[in-house]
């Protein structure tokens, strides 16, 4: 098969919206949503006479990401203007960094199918986001909303070190985790706080030179990225096999139609006339500043994995899921800190939480219940105040509305009946009323006890401890 002989070479440009309270060059809120043009001021709308003033928190977060990805920090860096006309860009230039980006020469480790590999990071730079254009198909008018104009971004440019869609996804996942753990961004592709452009070329295996690459945009999910990579690889191979040239161009991916089309040729690429922005002063980052950021770095995912393995007796698979998002890891740790047993916390997260997330098509980042309430639930079960199936029912409410389980159990009268006498009486009645099952059980059919347990639970309105029911039932049956 032809495709076996071709190697795919992929590099990524990832844009990440930084989670600062205000924009990169003005004090407007970065809050998502809101009526059009409410989070604006003369600066982020390009008014005459306005001037940018750098939000240092952006620099702090950019340095944090750079350090966590093993980059060298450019300790004297500047901003440059990238000039091009487009209405989502109020000054018709974007303030970015070309000549002295804040981070260079980093790397992240990924693991695919048990194989570990480093993906190089060429550079990371800070820049401002553009506004949003909305086209009205009825009037043919276009409108622009500058709420997003000036939201801080970092652009992470990788080396062309990836060779498959799996590696690309592993790299993106790694970046997402690092950045989330740093609190630098929530990295949600579906909300646009993380965007990836894929640069792809193919070459025959063993070739020393790279093929001509194309750039693909409008990739809004991991699945879309995987599909686009497969599609573009095939498209380029077909061209080459036919003796045609791959054109260096930007292509827009259409995920519903699963194909891409050329947007503009990179050859005719605009000359952006980059030059240092004269309104901003150089950023001098001394060693003390770097040290402060480094020391403030929280425990990252890989470190947690190692620590959890050593400290808690839970399987690696579970650790991976729990540390898969900072949010879940935080809930895990906070619940344990409130006194809950790690294995039990893990169980609630791995089984019931994961089930509900899947059912409601939610991401772990969207979990809205608190460690406090989870810890209370576990305590209720530990003290046998409620049984397992009641706990599951209560948990669904905790998951949906973050209710206080203690209050809920009280209000709804869900406490387990622990009165052994009353329970034995009920069980005796069940035994008396179900002679066939009793006989089946006595004749060796172990399964028959299940029916009797069920009946008991029904009679007890679910408020009995199944273990105790089982024990007493066996006692009665052995009489």
């Amino acid at each position, binding site marked *: 098969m032809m495709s076996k002989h071709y190697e795919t070479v992929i590099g990524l440009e990832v844009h990440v919206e930084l989670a600062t309270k205000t924009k990169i060059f003005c004090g407007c809120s970065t809050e998502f949503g809101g009526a059009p043009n409410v989070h604006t001021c003369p600066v982020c709308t390009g008014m005459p006479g306005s*001037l940018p003033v750098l939000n240092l928190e952006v620099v702090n977060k950019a340095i944090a990401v750079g350090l966590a990805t093993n980059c060298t920090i450019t300790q004297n860096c500047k901003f440059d203007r990238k000039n091009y*006309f487009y209405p989502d860009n109020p000054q018709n230039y974007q303030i970015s960094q070309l000549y002295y980006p804040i981070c260079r020469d980093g790397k992240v480790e990924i693991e695919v199918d048990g194989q570990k590999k480093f993906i190089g990071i060429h550079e990371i730079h800070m820049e401002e986001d553009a506004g949003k254009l909305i086209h009205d198909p009825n009037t043919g008018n276009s409108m622009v909303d500058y709420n997003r104009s000036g939201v801080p971004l970092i652009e992470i440019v990788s080396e062309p070190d990836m060779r498959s869609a799996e590696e690309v996804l592993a790299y993106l996942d790694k970046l997402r985790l690092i950045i989330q753990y740093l609190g630098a961004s929530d990295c949600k592709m579906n909300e646009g706080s993380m965007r990836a452009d894929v640069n792809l070329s193919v070459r025959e295996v063993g070739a020393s030179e790279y093929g001509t690459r194309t750039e693909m945009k409008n990739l809004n999910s991991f699945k879309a990225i995987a599909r686009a990579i497969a599609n573009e690889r095939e498209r380029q191979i077909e061209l080459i096999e036919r003796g045609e040239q791959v054109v260096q161009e930007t292509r827009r991916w259409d995920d519903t139609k699963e194909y891409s089309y050329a947007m503009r040729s990179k050859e005719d690429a605009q000359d952006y*006339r980059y030059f240092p922005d*004269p*309104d901003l002063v150089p950023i001098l980052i001394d060693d003390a500043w770097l040290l402060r950021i480094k020391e403030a770095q929280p425990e990252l995912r890989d470190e947690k994995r190692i620590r959890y393995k050593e400290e808690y007796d839970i399987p690696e698979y579970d650790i991976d899921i729990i540390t898969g998002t900072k949010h879940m890891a935080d809930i895990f740790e906070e619940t344990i800190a409130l006194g809950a047993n790690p294995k039990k916390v893990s169980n609630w997260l791995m089984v019931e939480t994961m089930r509900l997330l899947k059912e409601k098509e939610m991401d772990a980042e969207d979990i809205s219940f608190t460690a406090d309430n989870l810890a209370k639930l576990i305590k209720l079960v530990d003290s046998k105040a409620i049984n397992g199936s009641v706990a599951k029912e209560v948990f669904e409410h905790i998951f949906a509305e973050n209710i206080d389980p203690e209050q809920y159990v009280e209000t709804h009268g869900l406490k387990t009946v622990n009165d052994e006498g009353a329970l034995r009486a009920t069980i005796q009645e069940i035994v008396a009323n179900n002679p066939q099952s009793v006989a089946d059980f006595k004749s060796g059919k172990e399964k028959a006890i299940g029916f009797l347990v069920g009946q008991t639970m029904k009679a007890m309105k679910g408020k009995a401890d199944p273990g105790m029911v089982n024990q007493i039932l066996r006692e009665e049956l052995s009489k």
Partner: protein
Amino acid sequence: MELMQLTAVELGKKIRAGEVSVQEATKASLERLKAVEDKVNGFITVDEVGALKRAEEVQVKIDSGELTGPLAGVPVAIKDNMCVAGMLTTCGSKILSNFKPTYTATAVEKLVEAGAVVIGKTNMDEFAMGSTSETSYYGETKNPWNLDRVPGGSSGGSAAVVAAEEVSYALGSDTGGSIRQPAGFCGVTGIKPTYGRVSRYGLVAYGSSLDQIGPLAKDVTDCATILEVICGKDDKDSTSVAEKNADFTSALIDDVKGLKIGIPRGYFLTGIDLEVKEHVLAAAKVLEAKGAIVEEFDLGLVEYAIPAYYIIASAEASSNLERFDGVKYGYRTESFSDLHNMYKKTRSEGFGAEVKRRIMLGSFVLSSGYYDAYYMKALRTKALIKKEFDKAFEKYDVILGPVAPTTAPKLGESLSDPIKMYLGDVYTVSVNLAGLPGISVPCGIDSNGLPIGLQLLGKHFDEKTIIRAAYAFEQTRTYERSTLAKEGNA
């Protein structure tokens, strides 16, 4: 009318003493303005209603003791490239002919907080690009000394309305000489402060690394007083600096004993009017007689200043003016076929020829393949020019020279030869490139009856020394009123 003959500080004193009310002063300005504006055309916008209302408010605050500063109640004109909330701000261009900002430039706000009464916005070369104020969309401003002559540029309107006694003082902006040269042509005093002294927030940017706002007034005392009010670090301008030595009025001392003054030999070799040369050198002699030590020296790289300036200023301008696109505010062409057609037509129709020339020049020097040869080289030249001045200032406290090689040219004679016009900036542009402070004071009248300007340059943040030298020089002369001013009341 006589109120308008006073300096800003003199008028301010009378107002605080209760001899004159703010309303009287404002009315005097408006009356005078009405009498001569059809001849001068110094204003683009006059806000009579607003000014009178404001005058009343200021009077109340003076009476209550809330406003006690030297400029409280004094009428001022603001160059039309500084945003004043609610007032038309056109930058002398068609492309902003309908633009009213919702915010005010910091420098203007400081004046307003000090009790200034803004009479209106003055005419200027379009987007501050020019040396004659003839590139304005709103017509030419005439020089009050001779209505056939230019007032200079780009702050020609500001200089003219001060010289015509329509206001007590004005604010201008200076990127390559645009305060100092018109001050010289109009026989008034003007200061370009050290780069970073005065906030640029609200000043519509032309050459961002060169622009500064400064005062134009009848004398050094006024200019020092105004500068004291408007300077200071602004959180809204990253390039503004908090620096000491801002007590400028304490430098108003008639003493230059031992002051070391350097005169660049190369300034007087070619291209300078004989009469200008004579008067400037005579001024040096006056200072020498007062005890200053005057010496000629060689200032290096003078011939590179103009090319470096035009490359850097045009490059920055080509980017700064991209925002004028008909999308968000300002002029938009009436009919267009698509987005880029709209951009093209709006900007082609909205900008004048000189602005277009500089945008093209600026885009070219920043373009791929030429960036290193032109822009980067110009930046390096800028750094070297600054070094030359640093070297000179090791020996001298003040550098003295002309403001312009000629006195005011006739209207209509400059625009046809842009290069010749650019070369007229030879004495002023290097000051902006080096970021140094410069003051222009009148030093005589030529045989055509036109004023000659003397320029004094100081070290970074050493405005006080040039203020002192200028003040001392000024004490040997009397202020000469413009022809138009004298016609008003001899």
